[in-house]
């Protein structure tokens, strides 16, 4: 008797889960009225809760833009802090709808872990920071150095590759978090601190004497960071992808959060009209209304505005656009045409 109940309950669960699986991510988000965004447990400038518990940052801004596009409210997001170990399982198990958390796009993650990387919102690369006293001006002079390195990240593998290719040896000092790495490095436990250049810059800005530390010119890896969704729901992947492209294209076309309302009334540029939904009816093609991109831009600004307000050179993080400039400015940002 008990067994039958158990089997029955299990079958019912399986059936319900099967039915719910049939629901697309977009439908789930819309019926929930809230986007669940996998975020960082705390990285300066990219994603962290502020003193009032409101999440702020560059990746967080992307999630808010997505929520504005899909739900019409940039605050209808709940942020789930994920560690680098739990992020992919959380996405795959359906705990989060989208992952916007400094995740490097690699072959294995894309293919073997069944992720869909929809694009790149920040082009990073791995660099090295040393104290000025060390008198080193190039990473090629680091033979035999002790290196503070965060475990379980792509930087660990890149470091091994770089030193092997250049026939050098190093002694790793494994650390768990950026805060621990800074302490070890400042205490002299390692000569070199290596991680993504953006994180090195924000670390250095927090030191008591930033001038005593140099970031070496070599960038030893490609770290395209971008939003990630689950394999198998192409409609949702398209929505996330084109929201990112909409922010990038808006900067290229000169659409800002300030003038988006005005331009929405109609302009002479047909591409702007298609982006903002006055022509073409693009939004309805993936199940949203035509104002989706206008709402996203109005919520967080275009890519350039979002960058400037969270990590740009006017902020304490102080990152230059570099590779993250528009293709017309010598950068890598290149949104496909909206037509």
């Amino acid at each position, binding site marked *: 008797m008990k067994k039958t109940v158990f089997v029955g309950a299990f079958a019912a*669960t399986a059936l*319900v*889960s099967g*039915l*719910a*699986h049939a*629901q697309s991510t977009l439908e*789930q988000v819309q019926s*929930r009225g809230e986007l669940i965004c996998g975020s*960082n*447990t*705390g*990285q*300066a*400038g990219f*994603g*962290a*809760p*502020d*003193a*009032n*518990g409101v999440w702020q940052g560059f990746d967080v801004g992307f999630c808010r833009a997505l929520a504005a596009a899909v739900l019409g409210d940039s605050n209808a997001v*709940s*942020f*789930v*802090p*994920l*560690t680098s*170990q*739990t992020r992919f*399982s*959380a996405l795959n*198990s*359906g*705990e989060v709808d989208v992952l916007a958390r400094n995740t490097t796009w690699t072959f294995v993650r894309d293919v073997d872990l069944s992720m869909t990387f929809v694009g790149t919102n920040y082009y990073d690369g791995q660099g090295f920071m040393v104290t000025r006293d060390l008198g080193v001006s190039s990473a090629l002079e680091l033979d035999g150095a002790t290196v503070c390195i965060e475990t379980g990240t792509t930087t660990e593998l890149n470091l091994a590759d770089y030193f092997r290719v250049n026939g050098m040896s190093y002694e790793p000092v494994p650390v768990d*978090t*950026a*805060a621990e790495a*800074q*302490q070890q490095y400042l205490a002299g436990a390692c000569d070199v601190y290596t991680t993504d250049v953006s994180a090195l810059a*924000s*670390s250095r*800005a*927090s*030191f*008591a004497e930033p001038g005593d530390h140099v970031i070496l010119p070599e960038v030893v890896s490609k770290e395209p960071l971008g939003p990630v969704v689950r394999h198998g729901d192409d409609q949702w992947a398209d929505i996330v992808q084109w929201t990112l492209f909409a922010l990038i294209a808006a900067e290229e076309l000169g659409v800002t959060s300030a003038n988006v309302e005005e331009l929405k009334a109609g302009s002479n540029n047909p591409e702007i009209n298609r982006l903002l939904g006055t022509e073409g009816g693009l939004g309805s093609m993936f199940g949203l209304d035509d104002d989706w991109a206008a709402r996203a831009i109005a919520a967080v600004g275009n890519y350039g505005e979002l960058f400037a307000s969270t990590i740009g050179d006017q*902020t*304490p*993080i102080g990152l230059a656009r570099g590779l993250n400039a528009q293709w017309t400015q010598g950068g890598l940002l290149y949104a496909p045409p909206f037509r």
Partner: protein
Amino acid sequence: MSDTHAQTVAYVRSTMIEAADPPSSQTGAIKWMRENLFSGWLNTVLTLMSLLIIWMALAAVGPWLLNSVWTAGSLAECRAVLDGTSGACFSVITDRWHQLLFGFYPPEFYWRPVLALILLFVALAPVLFTALPRKLLIFTALYPFVGYHLLWGGSVWFPVSAALGFVAGFVAYKLLGKVNNLLAIFAAILTPVLWWVFAAGAFDAALSSVMPLGLEFVRSDRFGGFLISLIIGVSGISLSLPIGILLALGRQSDMIFLKTVCVVVIEFIRGVPLITLLFTASLLLNYFLPPGTAFDLILRVIIMVTLFASAYMAEVIRGGLAALPKGQYEAADALGLDYWKAQRLIIMPQALKISIPGIVNTFIGLFKDTTLVVFIGLLDPIGLSNAIRADTNWNGIYWELFIFIGLLFFIFCFGMSRYSMYLERKLKTDHR
């Protein structure tokens, strides 16, 4: 003779000498120091070395602690105030203490967790101190529902309908207890389950629509900081003791099926690291549950932590049971007590008394293990310290946060430890 006598009288005292103070080397601080610190060349050397180490530690940390800044708005301002001298920047605590304590709990409702904590002590008092009136235990039994409602809020009818399940079970037990004991136990288990599955939802919905009462609902992702550690720790501690006792008794049982189940549960859970159980709670469970089921993460973690602590608790109590002389069991049998009466009146009071240090050890370990939830992304104090550092104002702060968090945990763990020593003294009946 009289001369002699007269002569002696001249120098023999007629009164007693006033009792003199003992020599200074045999009294007070000096004696204590001679006996305890300098009682031989080896101990003298050890004392001097210890003093040197203490002095070095104080000299290293003392100025840094004394020269601390409490009111700056950011690490950079702290540095400006310190002006190159070494000093702690406790301004981060001034700025963010509410986050370290409450997480992102809405500030206008801070009174709710505070009240829940005060009521927790009220509910614990009759359990901890037998001198208090036993009537207070009624409040203790109600506290889980009161506490839940204070912390999470929502409709007041939800905890009420959950509590009614237990009432239904109790009533069923009382009614059938006159007929058949075994039947009554089954009914006591089955009735609440039936109530929760079939009736509780409707009851909750009906009363909520008729009489919408209750505090404003606070979502679980607003919980954080020390609040989350306390919720997980207190629930884990209070649930793991009864479950641990049942598991320990099950393991001692003669019923082969029951015994096997208990052994497998205990050994499996003890053989798996807590981190693995937490990852299971946060990630794996979602694969089995239908998508969209909002099975609260905090609840999942509490269940896993409780299971983990129960397995350890069972072994601690089994140690206490094993330490009891066989004569005690036989005496209980000779008195004609049934199994439960023997356990309740003779075996458990003695076994638990023996196990107090081990039980409190497990409690303290469990409470500190709650910080492991940082690995599944819950913002406990350690997790929040990361989030606070991600604010550019406080990026680079390190020790100050850990000192504050350590102090919070120390207060609670030290309290538990002192209480267990008090309890041991109070229950001491032997003459060893």
